[in-house]
């Protein structure tokens, strides 16, 4: 039969070796068959390790802001986030992303750039691919267009009135 899981506070006391003998016996009996509590204890151990090393470094070098970032990153890394979550966490310390206003601003900028570029380099689709001459106007000449695909030559010949 499975016992009820102990409260987080009790688990923390046990982890910090502050629990009474009775509590410890109770918990150890429970831990034999409770994988969940076992995992919680394991996580506490990982967190302690993540904090311990940078704090020791900080004590030596007195570079606290940098150490705090390392602690944060260490804790977050241990949480086994998805690739997107990892990427987001990697971006997080950047002030640009802390200020959420930059995200819509950058998105707007990208959209504007895309619109500008697509307008400037608009694809020509109004006539068939083989057509070279789009339009032709001449008030004084009769015009003939001759196109040879093999030789990649297009001839526009203008006939003067006297010729016709």
């Amino acid at each position, binding site marked *: 039969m499975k016992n009820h899981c102990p409260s987080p506070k009790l688990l923390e006391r046990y982890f910090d070796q502050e629990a009474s003998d009775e509590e410890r016996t109770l918990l150890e009996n429970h831990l034999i068959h409770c994988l969940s509590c076992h995992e919680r204890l394991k996580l506490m151990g990982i967190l302690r390790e993540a904090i311990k090393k940078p704090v020791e470094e900080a004590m030596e070098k007195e570079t606290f802001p940098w150490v705090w970032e390392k602690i944060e990153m260490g804790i977050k890394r241990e949480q086994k986030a998805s690739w997107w979550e990892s990427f987001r966490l990697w971006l997080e*310390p950047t002030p640009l992303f802390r200020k959420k206003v930059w995200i819509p601003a950058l998105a707007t900028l990208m959209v504007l750039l895309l619109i*500008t570029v697509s307008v400037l380099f608009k694809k020509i689709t109004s006539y068939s691919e083989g057509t*070279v001459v789009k339009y032709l106007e001449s008030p004084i000449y009769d015009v003939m267009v001759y196109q040879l695909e093999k030789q990649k030559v*297009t001839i*526009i010949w203008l006939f003067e009135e006297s010729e016709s």
Partner: protein
Amino acid sequence: MAIRRIRKLNPSFLRQIFFILISISILFLSLSSITYAQIQTRLRVVRASSIGHEIDPSLKELHKELKTFFSFTSYRLLREENLTLSLNKPVSITAREGRIIWEATLVGLHRGLAEVRIRVVSEGRETFNTQVRLTPGRTILVGGPRIRDGVIIYALFAKF
């Protein structure tokens, strides 16, 4: 001391630099693609006639194409211009002391395709107006107007 300072800036400072560089690169690429929307063209003005058998040495390659279409026996290069066409900026060359103006404008540019508008103005009057699609390697020949004992042919070739 210097090493210590760099370590203090790590890693958020480096990430700021990374994002600034990425933004600058995107902007630079966008702007450069707009700025360099241009093509190189070569315009040759040729006089073709049926008098004589003189082929201008510089027209040897073009003559291979010309002879399949025309029965002219003589081709002489009158003028050759390398024109850089930028988007919506007309480039013109003049002939006969400004009485004839030949104007080309790049009006559209897509991968492997340039749309060029060509206008010919003679004595202040537009005599010809066309818009053609140029692909790399294609030659557009515009010919017909009489000149002395022959006709004039404009050969436009694009490199891009």
